[in-house]
């Protein structure tokens, strides 16, 4: 047991060192690496209720977009009148000083984590009574509705979009912005991982699994399923909001349906990545997101105009050959490496019985 822990320690410290060194090693790829961190956070937290709890949500994009708008609004609103900033698509431009910028984004990110979590609690209370595909469809509607509503709210730019505050000009180093957003996203990734890992070792996960496997039985055993379902979703929302806030700052321009409530892309990607890696596992979504991102960045530019066809083929291949995801496939092939012991005698006796 001690040995395994030591191995884990080596693995984690290795990954952290790699993560910290990455923007220096692959300086030109900082933005892509930032995207990767964000994608992993999204996939990992989607997995909490999609994979562990069995509630397939297409609505997590709601929290992502909410976080994006909130961070930007707080960052501007703390120092300048927000309505004037966004009026006529940002015709007036105020300039943030360096301190204002960082203070703004700090508070903004905090807000963008807490409010989506509260919203998730409220919405969850209303709709988590739905099960299976009813829940999935309902959440799908949430994301779409949010995009359309945001596109009509003047104070956040409506259809014109919202230009987020530019990185302070006083910092001359052109690499600084990339590094800042990378480390920010990496920090959130580590935070999310530690948290999810903690959940994996707790009773909470078992309860989520119980809900997934048979909700009625879980309830019959005295578990207040509703409470746990809501908390599970709130955890997802917390990290989705953070991820959205970072992305808003990184992209620099928020559009209601194409950037913030981008259910067609981000909303689908997070589900896809978790499934690709294997839902219901700790490492699955991480591996899935990494593979997906590399597939996307590496391949897409070589098949200009056909990338969505390739993506479609990928989805079909995953569903047919790896229905349990890569981790699920590995687990089936090498169960002993996942710590699953197969009792040969028992297996044989079962076979003989038939």
């Amino acid at each position, binding site marked *: 047991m001690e040995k395994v822990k030591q191995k884990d320690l080596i693995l984690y410290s290795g990954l952290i060192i790699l993560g910290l060194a990455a923007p220096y090693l692959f300086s030109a790829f900082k933005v892509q690496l930032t995207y990767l961190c964000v994608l992993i956070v999204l996939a990992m937290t989607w997995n909490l209720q999609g994979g562990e709890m069995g509630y397939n949500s297409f609505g997590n994009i709601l929290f992502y977009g909410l976080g994006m708008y909130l961070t930007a609004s707080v960052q501007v609103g703390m120092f300048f009148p927000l309505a004037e900033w966004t009026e006529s698509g940002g015709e007036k431009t105020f300039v943030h000083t360096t301190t204002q910028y960082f203070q703004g984004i700090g508070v903004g990110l905090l807000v963008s984590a807490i409010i989506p979590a509260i919203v998730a609690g409220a919405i969850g209370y209303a709709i988590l009574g739905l099960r299976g595909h009813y829940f999935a469809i309902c959440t799908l509607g949430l994301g779409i509705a949010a995009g359309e509503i945001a596109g009509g709210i003047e104070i956040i730019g409506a259809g014109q979009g919202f230009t987020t505050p530019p990185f302070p000009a006083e910092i001359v180093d052109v690499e600084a912005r990339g590094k800042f957003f990378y480390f920010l996203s990496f920090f959130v990734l580590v935070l999310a991982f530690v948290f999810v890992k903690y959940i994996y070792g707790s009773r909470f996960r078992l309860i989520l699994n119980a809900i997934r496997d048979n909700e009625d039985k879980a309830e019959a055993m005295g578990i207040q399923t509703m409470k746990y379902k809501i908390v599970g979703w709130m955890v997802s929302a917390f990290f989705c909001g953070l991820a959205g806030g970072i992305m808003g700052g990184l992209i620099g321009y928020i559009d209601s349906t194409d950037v913030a409530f981008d259910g067609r892309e981000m909303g689908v990607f997070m589900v896809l990545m978790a499934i690709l890696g294997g839902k219901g596992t700790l490492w699955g979504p991480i591996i899935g997101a990494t593979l997906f991102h590399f597939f996307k960045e590496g391949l897409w530019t070589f098949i*200009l105009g056909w990338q969505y066809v390739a993506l479609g083929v990928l989805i079909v291949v995953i569903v047919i050959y790896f229905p349990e995801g890569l981790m699920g496939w590995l687990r089936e092939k090498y169960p002993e490496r996942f710590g699953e012991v197969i009792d040969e005698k028992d297996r044989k006796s079962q076979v003989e019985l038939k």
Partner: protein
Amino acid sequence: MNKIAKLFITFISAIAMALVSFSSSFAKVEGEYIVLGSAISLTGKYSSNGVHTQNGYNLAVDRINSMGGVKVGGKSYKFEIIYYDDESNPKRAAQLAERLIKQDGVHYMLGPYSSGLTKAIAPVTEKYKIPMVEANGASRSLFTKGYKYLFAVLSPANQYLEVAIDLAVEKNGGKPVKIAQAFEQDAFSQDVRLGILDAAKRTGSKIIIDDKLPKELNDMAATLAKVKATKPDVLVVSGHTKGALTAIRQIAEMKVDVPMLAMTHCDAAKLSKQHGKKAEYALCASQWHKNLSYKDKFFGTGKKYDKDFKKEFGYAPPYQSAESSAALLVFKDAFERANSFDRDKVRDALKATEMQTFYGNIKFGPGGQNTAKPMILFQVRCKGDTCENKVVAPTKWASDKFFHPIPPWSERG
């Protein structure tokens, strides 16, 4: 678990090695080529206009390269463009701009299609001090941000249909008119809307319908039903290509009678061809028309450009293609005047641009917008079954008289 961990570490290090080898293979910036970068919408909702833009760029690259290229420091260089597909998505566009600059080592950029995407890319090019000449981002807010490396060869979006309102007022005997308007919820169309609001205020006109249309625009029957009921003097619609097509299709289907119909993107939508007589009398804002009398030594006149473009791509060039071609002429001119590849020198040369192209005069204002070229309005007119776009305003270029009011559907064949 330990085997898994090993597997994972191997996987990560393989990726790391791939990345290292990747980043070093992109060091080349230019040999005899000046490499320009552009993220273009080849898929997604702007794909048709994205292709118009790309065709415009490509035609100009071929033309300039075959006519001696760009002469800098006594040596002749050729243009080359690296394209990526931004999927009509601002998020993707910003990321690709970063990629073009950091990984592909591009030092000069050409704009994407649409204001929204340009808004997403401009902060990136600005940060790295990369001069960008863009031909398809017309939103006014692009030019009020104080961007120093952004140059647009087109007129700002709020100017698109302002003139149409003036025209309507004029036709109404100088009295204010009732305006019905419907705009797609995107940066460009919302800017066109601001222009109309200004014009309405100026002329004292009243806006009786002010609708927003969704981005994937396929239906605007609700707006048209209101138009039928309230009988405005002028209906204004803007929603890129899909908006123009949807408006004409449903106006004809629902037989909506309105004395004046003003739109954008009629030529990109090939309205006169796709909808023929149904599109007749539509008044359209355009950055360019082939009949204008501008010329340059690469493309000759607008008519010649029209012919060459048709020969190459098999359809008549919409203004999106013309302005995109002009962007390259501007770049060539700036490189030669700067006589250097120093980005700041090229930028200064761009700033001092004052030239005529087949597309129009180009001179950049303080915000980077083109101040030397007016917008024009044309009207779709049909003779028998063939329909054509006839310039009706401003009077200097007008080839035909503006037809007003549009006859009711009961009298149209």
